[in-house]
């Protein structure tokens, strides 16, 4: 094994060890204080926030669909219009309209 080979393989092995160590330490610690603060905050406000947006600027649906489970873009500015809210497509979460309630329609023939 030449010196160069040793350096290359050594670098790769060190990088792999660094990654594995990080995963192990992260899993073990699980950001104790961080998770506790997150849980405390949610306990305090009784659960606020679900989607990947800090403020309900366009609507509540991607902020917290419990507050408003419908995307209001369908109502205004143009009723039935296209939903152009960036919250729907531009973040790492997409919460669709909940369908647990609706109007029962009987079709009369």
């Amino acid at each position, binding site marked *: 094994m030449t010196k160069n080979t040793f350096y290359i*393989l050594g670098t790769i092995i060190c990088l792999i060890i660094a990654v594995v160590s990080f995963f192990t330490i992260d899993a073990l610690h699980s950001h104790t204080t961080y998770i506790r603060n*997150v849980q405390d905050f949610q306990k305090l406000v009784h659960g606020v926030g679900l989607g990947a947006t800090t403020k309900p600027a366009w609507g509540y649906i991607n902020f917290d669909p419990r507050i408003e489970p419908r995307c209001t873009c369908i109502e205004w500015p143009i009723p039935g219009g296209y939903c152009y809210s960036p919250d729907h497509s531009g973040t790492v979460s997409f919460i669709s309209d909940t369908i647990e309630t609706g109007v029962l329609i009987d079709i009369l023939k």
Partner: protein
Amino acid sequence: MNKHINLLLLAAENLLRHRTKTIVVCLCVIAILSPFITAISISEGIREQSLASVEEGGDLYLTFDEFGRNTSVPLKYLEEIRTIFGVKKAVPRIIGRAYFQNKLVVIVGINKEDIPDSVSCISGRMFENPNEVIIGNELARHFHLRIGDQFSMRGQQRKVFTAAGVFTPDSGIWGASLLFMSFKDAGELFGKPEVATDIQIYSIPGHNSEIATDLYSILMNEPYRLQDKQIIELFVKKGFLLKEGIFTALYVVAFALGIPAILVASGFGLSDRRKEIGIMKATGWNTLEVLELITFEQLLISLLGATIAILLSIFWIRVFNGIFIGQFFIAEITLLPKFTVPSKFLPLPFLLSFFFALLLTMVGSIYSSWRASSVSPVVAMK
């Protein structure tokens, strides 16, 4: 066994011999993998916070319905709801939004008796007197507010508040632009003192359907909406899985587009490689040994690229708090997020990234190497 180890060592030496090609291919792999790993880690981090939000929320979530939208619940029903068998606790809340100067803020109002005795997510103290509030970290930094400062804001009414405390930066993304106050203060701010936007009902396990039945008899002529924790949890998990799936699908496309780039980069110096392979064949190497050598080279480059990509991603998120990149994945945040960007690094995205990188580099080089090793050594060396 010795032969394979020797091939591995030779592959490592070849990486340094073709230094430029190794660096270019590595950089391509890192550029492709880093955003993918970062997006997945932020998604997992927010999902973890979301599940905490679902967990700490009520088992049943009651709002009224008006024109198909959620509307407020009159407080006159609250005492009756509390007496339903199976209800441990019913917490009315006001959740709204208002402008604080030019910044949209979320207002959350809860009665003091419904707040836990001690929390660790606040620096300062909980509000005790009227008009005291807890401010989100981003708001406090933006407006340079400290504990004890007074400020006024207008909802339906103008009110003057005193900052009793500030949420810590790691209390979650939804606390960043939030004003937390007493239920009474929130009601006065919005000019609606006798209603709540929702009532969180905490129930004894297994009693949800009985509570729902009793609620129906209490609210018989009122249009209302009752959501339970399981439905919400389902939609949250689905929402994140869907987006992670979309990101993964988009990145498969990006990886596929990366193949021509890596092909070019891997074929960089292809004529020299052909001669090298020709010489190897002429000196007794067989095709399988040549391909094994190439495979080891790509394996080492993929390992190098994938590990550097994940370490870069970790560094970017954990040390630099997702500067510049966070805004692509979380809405309504600034270039320099003023709260801790949530992230959770899991082994699976790293393994996926490594295999994608290996696939990319192999596709880019294995065919051309096989062609070079299949022809006569004389032709290859020309």
